[in-house]
């Protein structure tokens, strides 16, 4: 049952918006002063989205921060003085892509919509098998193209960090679309010298298929509307996946010099499938650096459309997280990983697997939970294999 997606400013919604007939409900992003503030599920009335229904949905679903920003807007009409854009650190936007020309086209179009504040846009082509990627990039004048012959998302991220000219490098996936304020929000997050990375809010670009809805129900990428600062005093480095996802993050270029580059043995393009950015964030936290979560840095991600793709993704997350923990035990001597893994398995994964099996099909597909668990079990070995392969790759022939 497809769900329509809308983006409105609070109190500036049209009273009724017609919605194509195949949608059964709407998911609405409500902004206050142009900044994302709430994400609510709204039923449709006679094929229309009513402003009153959104209001009602806000009354029950909006987080406290939403009302706080509404109240602030009423009491203090203009936002506190924004720092001058030119004083913010310079930025490079890096898109790491492989054989997804159509998605890349949409992504680059959205990046072109951002206000020009002197940012550089860099596309890192991770050994695409066709020339379509290059063709898309050349159709956008002024966008840099970097071709790598070696596949691997983390290899591409390292190449982006090395080639970028900006002080910070903002990463966006090729299947995501950036909000015009996305980059500025990331740049603003780096005001503190100890902040080495920031992550942002990612919402679904479309909810057309059951697989996409299921991905959202599984947790999606949304980390809420409250800005947060993550430090190792409050977050164990091994739980770094909480800080955000690689689809929407920015890294200070010098961070790689301080804690080492992204691990080439992790993430897409290797047997470990994911976990690359979480592992990097873990090293940042363990070195007592800060990671900012900024909901104003908004982008939209097109989730996988088919169930087969979704299952592969969820399996990949399982592999990635355990591969990341394996690396932490092996290389960083973080013995806590074993404890965390056991805790997660016994306290969370197994009970959920059982309850979703009992309540199927009402509960989220238990097959997904099983896939995740299978991935977890495959994770440690996948990392060892991947690390060996990466080692051989590095050795001169």
């Amino acid at each position, binding site marked *: 049952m497809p769900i329509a997606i809308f983006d409105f400013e609070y109190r500036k919604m049209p009273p009724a918006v017609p919605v194509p007939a195949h949608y059964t409900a709407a998911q609405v992003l409500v902004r206050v002063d142009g900044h994302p503030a709430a994400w609510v599920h709204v039923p449709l009335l006679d094929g229309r989205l009513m402003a009153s229904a959104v209001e009602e949905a806000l009354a029950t679903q909006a987080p406290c921060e939403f009302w*706080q920003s509404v109240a602030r807007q009423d009491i203090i009409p203009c936002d506190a003085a924004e720092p001058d854009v030119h004083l913010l650190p310079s930025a490079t936007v890096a898109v790491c892509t492989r054989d997804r020309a159509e998605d890349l086209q949409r992504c680059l179009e959205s990046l072109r919509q951002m206000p020009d504040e002197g940012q550089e846009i860099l596309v890192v082509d991770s050994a695409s098998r066709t020339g379509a990627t290059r063709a898309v990039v050349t159709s956008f004048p002024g966008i840099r193209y970097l071709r790598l012959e070696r596949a691997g998302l983390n290899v591409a991220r390292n190449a982006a960090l090395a080639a970028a000219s900006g002080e910070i490098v903002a990463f966006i996936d090729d299947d995501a679309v950036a909000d015009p304020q996305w980059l500025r929000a990331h740049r603003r997050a780096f005001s503190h010298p100890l902040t080495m990375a920031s992550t942002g809010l990612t919402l679904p670009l479309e909810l057309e298929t059951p697989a996409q809805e299921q991905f959202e129900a599984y947790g999606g990428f949304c980390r809420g509307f409250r800005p947060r600062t993550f430090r190792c005093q409050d977050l164990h480095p091994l739980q770094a996946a909480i800080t955000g996802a690689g689809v929407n993050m920015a890294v200070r270029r010098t961070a790689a010099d301080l804690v080492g580059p992204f691990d080439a043995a992790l993430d897409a393009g290797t047997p470990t499938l994911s976990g690359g950015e979480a592992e990097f964030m873990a090293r940042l936290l363990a070195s*007592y650096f800060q990671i900012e979560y900024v909901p104003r840095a908004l982008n939209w991600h097109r989730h996988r459309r088919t169930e087969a793709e979704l299952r592969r993704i969820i399996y990949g997350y399982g592999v990635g997280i355990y591969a990341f923990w394996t690396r932490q035990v092996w290389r960083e001597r973080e*013995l806590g990983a074993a404890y965390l893994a056991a805790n997660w398995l016994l306290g969370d994964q197994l009970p959920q697997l059982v309850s979703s099996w009992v309540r199927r099909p009402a509960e989220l597909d238990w097959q997904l939970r099983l896939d995740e668990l299978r991935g977890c079990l495959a994770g440690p070995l996948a990392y060892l294999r991947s690390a060996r392969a990466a080692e051989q790759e590095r050795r001169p022939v």
Partner: protein
Amino acid sequence: MIDHTTAVQPVLSVVIPTRNAPPSLTTTLAGLARQTLPPDRYEVLVVGGVDEEAIERCVPAGLPYSLRILVKRGPGASRRRNFGAEHARADLLVFLDDDMGPEPGLLEGHVRAHAAGSGRRVVMGYLPPPLDVSGAGGQVDWLKAELRDWWEDGFVAMTQPGHRFSYSDVLSGNLSLPTALFQEVGGFDLDYYPCRDDFELGVRLLQAGAQLHMCQDARSWHHDKTDLPRLLARKTDEGRIDVQLARQYPHLRPALLISKQYRELNISSRALRFVARSSPATADFLAGLLTPLLALCERLRLRGTWRRLLGGLLVHAYWRGVLNVTTGWDDVHDLTTAPAPSLASIDLAELEKVDGMRQVAKDLQCRKLEGVRLTWHDIPLGRLPPQAGAEPVGDRHIAAWLAEEGALPLMRARNLGKLLALSAADISEIAHDPFLLACADLQVCPQVRRKVDERQVAFRPEVVWNIDLECGRQALEPLCIPHAMLVRVRHNNQELGWLSLPAEECTRTLGRVLYALLAQLDHAAFIAR
């Protein structure tokens, strides 16, 4: 004595106390040579504790500014700071430690911060956090990192718009103030040795009406060399000096660690404190055992255990210091009792009037309140709690509070004010206002725990039992409750208290319940939110 005294009157006198002229003094002096402020506008006074020759060996060649070397023997850097201040020629004093790496804008930052102030400003410079906190083996040194973050947290707090500056924000490592103000309060008190001399100066500066200010442009790198033994020794000194502060300034007591820990310690820390009192030798032996454990935890990456162990060691060291200079628990108890702070209500309805904020500011300036309750007519909104040893509440703090957590309560109160002015018929309409409902935070749950649109009210069975409470959306219609009732009010599962509602009016709207809630709730409980 090297003296490059020029005829021009300097605007700044930089006083650097040094005991035995460490090599870092050379860095400090060299950094002062690369300032954006022209060198004829400042002079530097290095006050040594041993002899002039040792200092002269540290002086780099070709300094562009006027440098004077003085000697004042005796314990304590503050003795040398006072001595340097007596010989300063400029109207503005900058105190700098001898292990600093001044950035080029340091002195200009201080001058500008004073120019923007009232003439009674005390300006704290910024010590940026070093990125590298690795220890001997190249690994991150946890203690170094935690200490860096502790310093940095202090500076970050000072840059917040609503920060209430306190005596403990005065840090003598990179500090500037008018020479006249420094002399007026009598300089540093030499009885405070070897630490907290700057805090004690802060107490007197605040009493003299000085305005504390933090300037991020006045930056200097600090080469902190604190290790665990030094930290523990310092903690013991702090315990001892805190007793001295508590005796001399009773109003400060609630802010001191001694008061906080006296009441708030957990069982294991209480046990540690007890052992520290009854058998210091045993306590030292135990602490000695814990120290190597700390290193082991770090090697095994046991963060939580490491942090708890360190906390325990610091508590022990602090209380060793406290108990050394007190006569018993009764004495400690006396040191933790403080005079009641001054607290008054400020009605923010004033802000609706023309020039309202200025009136409020003037009012606050006269009354010098330690804490305020903020209301909207008679509806409590929140409060700026009394903070021992901090500057009095000013309009800056109220404005910052309104911009953050105060916005929502004020908004609610305004809406409720409108609600009260309405007739019963209008009220039912207002009860549909999603904003009002979402702001309500009223959780309504009958004894039978029926969920009412995710808001739950609990009724005491003996008071009302047979209430007809409809489920779902209808619950947002005027509630028909023909009884007096007690409502348990909870917020985020935290109980705020019971609220009694009289029976005179049979029909109540949620809005009325809300109003009663705000008007009747015990103030302290309301604030607990």
